[in-house]
């Protein structure tokens, strides 16, 4: 399943990011269990995410795929009475450790949400927000460069370069979502999590985002939750099927969609439930 074919030439890149050795997993999850109060939402899930590839999490509503995704940048910390057990290793370090600062972790693991959620600030300030709070830019010119590069990578630069001071909320839904992706990229993450990023968008905007994901996978480890099996098949190289809080099957996307090992996976993919 080599996946380097057909990607457009990337722009000049001066950001140097730490890399896992090619083929080595970027994230290694071991025995993850998630509880909301008494109720267990995730049952003992172990899986790995390869670097520079897109992994899709699919499954029927309520199967725990979004909850699992939110473990990867400890966003579940912000939900009261939510408890996560198990180890999640990034660069050999367990991010669930007491002494890992979620603030620093989240600067390494970006996230894009279901509904586009730009801040009620200008387009420029939306992108500059992350670099500013993390002190990534030395001076105005540097910040300008980061903003431009992030917008270029998100394929939004040409559309907004003349109105960077316009509010982010004035953009169309698809543009807003690309703005949110640019905002996530601006803090130079290693991993990008996407929680159904196209579910609020029309087919044309969806196609643009999917193109973008395909370009981004050359640099990042991307994990995407999606309800659309066509989308999973189009953008991902690896696919994991969740059902009732369990990881049912995980494998190369081609194999999952053409030759699933599990009966439940086959039933879901062929539309018999969910």
């Amino acid at each position, binding site marked *: 399943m080599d996946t380097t074919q057909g990607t457009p030439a990337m722009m000049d890149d001066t950001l140097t990011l730490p890399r896992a050795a090619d083929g080595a997993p970027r994230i290694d999850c071991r025995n993850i269990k998630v509880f909301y109060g008494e109720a267990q939402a995730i049952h003992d899930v172990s899986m790995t995410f390869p670097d520079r590839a897109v992994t899709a999490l699919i499954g029927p509503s309520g199967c725990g795929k979004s909850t699992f995704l939110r473990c990867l*940048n400890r*966003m579940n910390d*912000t939900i*009261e009475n939510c408890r996560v057990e198990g180890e999640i290793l990034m660069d050999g370090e367990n991010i669930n450790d007491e002494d890992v600062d979620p*603030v*620093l*972790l*989240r*600067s390494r693991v*970006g*996230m894009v*949400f279901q*509904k586009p*959620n*730009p*801040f*009620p*600030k200008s387009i420029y300030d939306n992108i500059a*927000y*992350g670099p500013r*709070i*993390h002190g990534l830019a030395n001076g105005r010119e540097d910040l300008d460069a980061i903003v431009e590069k992030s917008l270029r990578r998100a394929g939004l630069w040409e559309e907004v370069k003349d109105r960077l001071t316009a509010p982010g*909320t004035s953009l169309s839904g698809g543009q807003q979502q690309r703005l*949110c992706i640019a*905002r*996530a990229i601006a*803090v130079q993450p290693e991993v990008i999590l996407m929680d159904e990023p196209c579910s609020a968008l029309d087919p044309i905007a969806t196609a643009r985002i999917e193109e973008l994901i395909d370009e981004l996978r050359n640099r990042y480890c991307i994990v995407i939750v999606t309800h659309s099996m066509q989308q999973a098949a189009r953008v991902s190289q690896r696919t994991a099927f969740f059902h009732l809080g369990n990881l049912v099957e995980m494998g190369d996307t081609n194999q999952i969609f053409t030759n699933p090992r599990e009966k439940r996976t086959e039933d879901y993919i062929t539309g018999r439930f969910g």
Partner: protein
Amino acid sequence: MLQQLGQLPMGWLLIALIAVFGSAAFFMGRVRAERLLVSTTSRMHSRPNYHGYYVAMWATVPVVLVAMAYAIFAEDLTRSQLTRELPSSFARLSPVELQSYLESVRMAAGTAASAGADRVFQAITNRYLELRGLVNTGTLVLLGLLAAGGIFFAQRRLQPNFRARAFVENGMQFVLFLCAGVAVATTAGIVLSLLYESLLFFQKVSAWDFLTGTRWNAQTEAEFGALPLFFGTFMIALIAMLVAAPIGLFSAIFLSEYASPRARAWIKPILEILAGIPTVVYGFFALLVVAPGIRTAAIWFNETAIRFGLASEPILAAQPTSALAAGLVMGIMVIPFVSSLSDDVINAVPQTLRDAAYALGATKSETVKQVVVPAALPGIIAALLLAVSRAIGETMIVVMAAGKSARISMDPTSDLTTITVQIVSLMTGETGFDDPKTLSAFALGLVLFIVTLAFNVVALRVVKKYREKYD
């Protein structure tokens, strides 16, 4: 007989009659509609209940109108007829004397206690009762006829395809419209009367002198320069907002972003109790606790300054009532207005925005400072404006704790007076309504109304704009 009719408790009787006519008409209409339902082969347009309501409306609406006319005109009608029949000796009474005589007749008639009075008075009272009896009887007969006629007319119109529902729905809409209209009309009436009396005032005192004059002495001399009052109002509202804005806003942020649901469930109602304390209570708190404390502190400050040679005479006025005392307590009073509204708008900031900030690695305080508060800012500003208009219009605290000296002084320990305080002192006690002294209160009221209205309008517009953004 007529005299006894004149003593009927017409108010209760009318209400009872309307209720009886209404329910009787309702059942008659419904029964008739149900019969139609059985006998007809086609579908009824409206449910039987609507036919009932339809008949009831015909039975009650004209009756209610007549009852209202009775309430307004019956007494006048009786009196004017009685005046015409009075002996000629009454002609030399002035209109005021005549009215007060007739009023005592009415009182005597109401209690039937005219025994012991002179014969003329007794005769007039009896005649009054007779006339009143005539009016009452006429009204009751008219009511009965109207109700019966209404029921008869409405009953005849009931058909299977009669659109009773549409009629009733329109009628309901009209009733609701009338109720809303009462509120609007009242507001308009208040504004118009304010305007009218203010115009009378401005015929005697020029508006320019009123708005820019610096000497106010309405009670004793005719000096109507209201600038010191505007200054006092502004000063005290400013002190109040200096207290209420930070405390209210920060407690709102604590409640909505940091407090656990348990703490929130406790703190929020307690904070809102502040809004329920009568302002009189705040007033004597300000007068008896805060003002003396401020005075003591100011005197100590003066003495210390003199002792260390920093001043040769007292710097602060240190008066027993002061702008600072009134402002501080008023600030505490408006805290819940700021905190409760701000809390609502902060809660209305979508969770997705907080998630976005957290996902970028923002800390909690960064998220609050840079994302949540800016997003809620229009609503917070609106909350502050509403609190300001509340502070400007507040009366009781300043009446008790701010003092009565109309002066322009930046010293917060000196006593100041406000628009509301002056209105109170102008309108209490002996007043004549054509006196510029009294009329000036209306002009002050008009200024107060315009200022608070402006604040409210701006605040509501800001809130509306903010709502459009997130819905």
